[in-house]
């Protein structure tokens, strides 16, 4: 059944088809206005699901795609899916609105842009609303492709193409791994449905394919979510237009990996490896992202690394939250909070990071640069933008009273709770988590400050700016303002989210923790008392401010890391050396010399056949059913051998030809000896005609110039050909010695005359029993003749392609 829900998912694709038409027909109106309708209407449509999901219920609609393979387009809306769907359509609306002002309709090829964007939107909806893993994978790949196209939107720029390729290769690598993982899951459970797989998760826990499947799927999630060390594509993806960066590369697509981890937690989270991998990679990424962000001077690069870091943070919380499933004996509430924090921060991140990206876009748009070394003092020129920057950055830095503070506190709680994992005696490792988290938060604080104060504080350096800055047009400010107000609203009233969105989503991630009909209680509030978390935050602010002010003194730390060891360099080197090596390897054997190719082929031929022959002990030599040998036959055999050898070693073309003729005639004679008159006749005439042909062609060909008698060359050839001859002979002898069945030819003597009316069996076979052979054999002859005619008469000049 194809339902409205399916239509909702497909709608952006359908709209994408209309975009180029609209772009051509209605060129006066910015195409974005039409496009805006799509996410907006979808947002409203999805809001309707809120009452359903907040009761922990779900909606499923199945449309059969390839049921024979267990692939059906099963649209499935539950808390988690809806959360993402709202995020996608909500932020999507804002981004499209923003893009209308950001991209000029005169200069840009908007048709392409919006097609890609809508494609992405549909794909993303498909990812989060599909229950079938194959369908999910389908949409997953489409997000990668649309991301590729959006990054390379300004395709004339070298850097755009570089970034696009990088993102595609890395995400596709993950995608392919994920596909294999999905198939492995299918091997274990015989279904592609996530719900059904989750239902049997306890059975597959000890399956030998469980761990490989998990690792492969995590690889998919990590590459998509730019987790360390696959994060390197994200900064380069910033070559995309800023609306794209805000939408794909911070708010939605990169969160597809997080979605996948969350979605598959019910399947995998029972194993300890899942917990440690997800949390471990998350925290590493958190640290590495925040640490790297500080060194950059391009605003977008800072935001990119910040995104990497925040994604790591969310993931680490999900990992910790999974502990609720892994340990069934401990107090679940300790860890459930982590999951809630993850989801909450996911939303918060979308709000503040989205607004920050848009803010950077505005700055870039108005000043013509994003380099903080050139920027500064914009506070007075662009007050609204400045406000957006301050609120967004402070929220990101985890300062009250914004929503970032709340989730940061919850994050610290989650990390501190890890230390109680002493159940399996890793408390020493567990302690690392809160420490790293805290250090990462300090860096987060620092780059947040950099964003605000290096851009808006200090002196205005008009001479370094490509264009004179103004406050942005109002239309461009709407979207960031909406987002930034959400930052404040969620900061003060976090609980408007907690029961409608977060709790149902948690139910999807941790279904087994809940008893039937039970719901999660998520209460988020500012004041917890003088907890360790609060002191940690105070420490962050104190130390962060100190470090921010003294940044010049310690930024030398970054130069301690040699550039050549970075993962970026590794990627570049891999491609470069890979291509070089491929070229070398190929150049090594693809010499263009047919002689070389033949040598390879013959060596393979003999080696593999001889190996099989001896390895399988197939060599049999018997004289049981062989025909008797007589003297003249032996002499003729010798004759044939000699004439063949003469052909082989003759150095004049006439000698070659004459001895070839002799060879052919002797073969004909063997046909006489072995009682094949028709063959003898045919062979004789054909040999003569062939010789005549050779003579004819000799007119056009030069005499054989003596091969440069390189002994090694000749010997090599000789050895190869000798091996070929021996192989043929040995197999022949063995095949002759192993006649397992009677030949079918006993049929022909009687049938020839009685059924086919001919006395010459060979001829009867040729024209009747196997007449088809003959029919197509004369076709071969005919083609050959016409081919020769064509080859000689038709002579086109030059190397033509068409």
């Amino acid at each position, binding site marked *: 059944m194809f339902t409205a829900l399916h239509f909702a998912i497909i709608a952006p694709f359908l709209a994408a088809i209309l975009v180029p038409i609209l772009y051509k027909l209605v060129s006066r109106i910015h195409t974005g206005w039409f496009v805006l309708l799509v996410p907006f209407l979808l947002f409203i449509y999805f809001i309707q699901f809120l009452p359903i999901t907040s009761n922990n219920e779900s909606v499923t609609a199945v449309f059969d795609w390839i049921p024979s393979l267990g692939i059906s387009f099963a649209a499935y809306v539950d808390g988690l899916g809806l959360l993402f769907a709202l995020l996608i359509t909500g932020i999507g609306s804002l981004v499209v609105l923003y893009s209308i002002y950001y991209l000029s309709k005169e200069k840009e090829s908007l048709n392409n842009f919006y097609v890609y964007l809508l494609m992405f939107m549909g794909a993303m909806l498909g990812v989060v609303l599909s229950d079938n893993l194959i369908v999910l994978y389908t949409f997953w790949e489409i997000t990668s492709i649309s991301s590729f196209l959006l990054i390379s939107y300004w*395709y004339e720029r070298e850097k755009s193409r570089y970034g696009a390729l990088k993102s595609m290769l890395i995400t596709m690598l993950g995608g392919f791994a994920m596909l294999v993982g999905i198939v492995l899951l299918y091997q274990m459970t015989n279904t592609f449905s996530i719900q059904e797989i989750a239902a049997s998760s306890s059975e597959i826990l000890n399956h030998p394919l469980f761990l490989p499947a998990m690792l492969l799927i995590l690889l998919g999630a990590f590459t998509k979510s730019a987790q360390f060390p696959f994060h390197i594509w994200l900064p380069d993806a910033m070559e995309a237009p800023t609306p794209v960066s805000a939408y794909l590369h911070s708010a939605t697509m990169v969160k597809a990996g997080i979605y996948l981890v969350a979605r598959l937690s019910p399947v995998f989270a029972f194993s300890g490896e899942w917990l440690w991998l997800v949390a471990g990679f998350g925290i590493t990424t958190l640290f590495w992202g925040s640490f790297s962000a500080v060194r950059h001077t391009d605003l977008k690069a800072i935001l990119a690394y910040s995104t990497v870091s925040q994604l790591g943070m969310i993931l680490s919380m999900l990992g910790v939250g999974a502990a609720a499933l892994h340990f069934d004996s401990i107090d679940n509430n300790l860890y459930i909070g982590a999951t809630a924090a993850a989801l909450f921060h996911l939303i918060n991140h979308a709000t503040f990071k989205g607004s920050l990206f848009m803010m950077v876009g505005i700055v870039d748009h108005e000043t013509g640069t994003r380099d903080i070394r050139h920027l500064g003092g914009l506070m007075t020129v662009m007050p609204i933008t400045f406000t957006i920057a301050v609120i967004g950055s402070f929220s990101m830095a985890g300062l009250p009273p914004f929503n970032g503070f709340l989730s940061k506190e919850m994050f610290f709680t989650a990390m501190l709770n890890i230390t109680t994992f002493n159940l399996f005696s890793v408390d020493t490792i567990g302690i690392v988590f809160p420490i790293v988290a805290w250090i990462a938060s300090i860096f987060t604080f620092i780059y947040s400050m950099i964003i605000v104060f290096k851009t808006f504080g200090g002196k205005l350096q008009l001479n370094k700016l490509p264009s004179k800055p103004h406050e942005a047009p109002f239309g461009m400010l709407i979207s960031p303002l909406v987002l930034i107000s959400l930052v404040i609203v969620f900061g003060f009233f976090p609980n408007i989210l907690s029961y409608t969105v977060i709790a149902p989503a948690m139910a999807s991630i941790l279904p087994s923790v809940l008893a039937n009909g039970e719901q999660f209680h998520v209460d988020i509030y500012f004041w917890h008392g003088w907890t360790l978390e609060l002191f940690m935050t105070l420490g962050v602010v104190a130390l962060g401010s100190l470090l921010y002010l003294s940044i010049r003194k310690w930024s030398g730390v970054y130069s301690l890391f040699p550039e050549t060891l970075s993962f970026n360099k590794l990627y570049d080197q891999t491609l470069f050396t890979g291509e070089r090596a491929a070229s070398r390897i190929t150049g090594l054997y693809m010499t263009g010399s047919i002689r070389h*190719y033949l040598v390879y082929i013959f060596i393979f031929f003999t080696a593999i056949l001889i190996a099989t022959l001896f390895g399988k002990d197939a060599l049999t030599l018997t004289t049981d059913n062989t025909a008797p040998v007589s003297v003249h036959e032996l002499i003729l055999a010798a004759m044939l051998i000699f004439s063949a050898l003469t052909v082989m070693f003759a150095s004049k073309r006439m000698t070659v030809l004459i001895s070839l003729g002799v060879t052919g005639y002797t073969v004909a004679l063997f046909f006489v000896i072995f009682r094949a008159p028709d063959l003898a006749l045919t062979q004789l005439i054909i040999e003569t005609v062939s010789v005549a042909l050779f003579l004819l062609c000799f007119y056009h060909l030069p005499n054989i110039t003596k091969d440069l008698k390189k002994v090694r060359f000749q010997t090599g050839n000789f050895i190869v050909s000798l091996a070929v001859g021996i192989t043929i002979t040995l197999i022949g002898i063995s095949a002759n010695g192993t006649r397992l069945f009677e030949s*079918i030819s006993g049929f022909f003597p009687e049938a020839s005359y009685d059924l086919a009316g001919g006395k010459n069996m060979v001829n009867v076979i040729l024209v009747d029993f196997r007449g088809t052979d003959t029919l197509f054999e004369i076709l071969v002859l005919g083609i050959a003749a016409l081919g020769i005619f064509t080859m000689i008469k038709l002579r086109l000049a030059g190397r033509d392609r*068409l």
Partner: protein
Amino acid sequence: MHMINILIAPILIPLLTGTILLLIPKKITAQRTISIIAGIVLIAVNIFLVLDVYQNGIRTLELGGWTPPFGIVLVGDMLALLLVTTTSVLSLPVLLYSFRSIGREREKFYYYSFYYFLITGVSGAFITGDIFNLFVFFEVMLIASYILIVHGGTKVQLRESFKYVLVNVISSALFVGAVAYLYAVTGTLNMAHLSERIGSLDETVPILTVIAVMFLIVFGLKGALFPLYFWLPGSYAAPPPAIAAIFGALLTKVGIYSLFRTYSLIFVNDTAFTHTLLGILAGITMIAGVIGAIAHQDVFKILVYNVIVAVGYVLFGVSVLNDSGFNGAIFYLIHDMIIKAALFLLVGTLVFVAGTSKLKKMGGIIKYYPALGWMFFVAVMSLVGVPPLSGFIGKLLLIQGGANAGDYWLVATMMISSLLVLYSMIRIFLNGFFGKPTLERPDQFSTAKGLLWPSALLIALSVLVGLGAELLYPLVDIAATTLLQPEIYIEAVLKE
């Protein structure tokens, strides 16, 4: 008209078309008209046959009325007919492309006849149920391919076809030798009968293994299996794109088909050895092919090496010897035939409009030829196996087949090679279609436009095969089942 003879139609229609066209070499319009009509009729008949076999099971035709194994029998099982149908379906767009691109000179010199003779050979090779008759059809196909590759007689064509012909002549001789050995041991030529006889053996017969390996080499040479594919890159890059398209789409496939057929029907005496060997070679082929693709900066060469990669994928599916693997191999085979034809045509057009085949010298083509660029992009995605395009289903089933058989390393190899395929092809898109435009003005615009329709048809077909996989799947499944259970084939042919 009696229905019994309908199975000869896929061979007879192109044969008669080609022959009749011989009589009117100078009348180009008439030649084109006849070719088109024949192409359409061929497709219709083939689809009819597929549906017929779907409903009534394998159809056989005992040529001359002689009961097998004494006469030659044509066997229309699902695999054969699916491939024959695909052949006819993709040959029509390529034909349309030829109208626009091949040039009057070539048309006057029997181009369409040779084209249809090639299809005759290919279709015959798919349908025949006799191993020696297979050789004959191989020769029909080959001799037609020889002349097509050299058709026009330019320098590069002559140079490359010399190598191509040489390798194939040798492999033909080895084919005869292999048939000779097989006949010595089994005393029969009919494939069903061979299968029955070999199947009746209780234990492995070493010499049969050797012969199986020899057939592997013979068909591997035609099918471009590692390390036997060296002849391919040069020769496929030499002729005009229409011819290259039909080569890339069909020629290696016949070799693959023959391996598929013989390695499921006949040589199942010692699968532990033969199929493992096939699997290993398939794995190396995937990697070696893609290494070649990455090594080159010439768009034609990149594409040509990708032909080799696909050979590895399909044969990997053959080697696992299970249901999913076979399904995957058939799906992928059909997909690859379509998409390779499309890609060759697109790349041919690209080279035409760019005026060069060197990647480094082109750029920004998409600015003037957006349709060409986007079709190419979709084709690449399909090639790589991005869902929901046609390449995906095959790849999915191949992964399943590999997993079922426990050949995880081969699965991994396939995925890595897929990624590299993506890299090799997307470079063309990024550097050729994207990038700074190098064209001063698109002066060939009007000419090139008509070249796009055939590729569009093929791409649409690829999308259809992907999205409509459910329609195709039952057919493919029947084909795979027939391959897995030789009894069905034997029963249908020998009627015992």
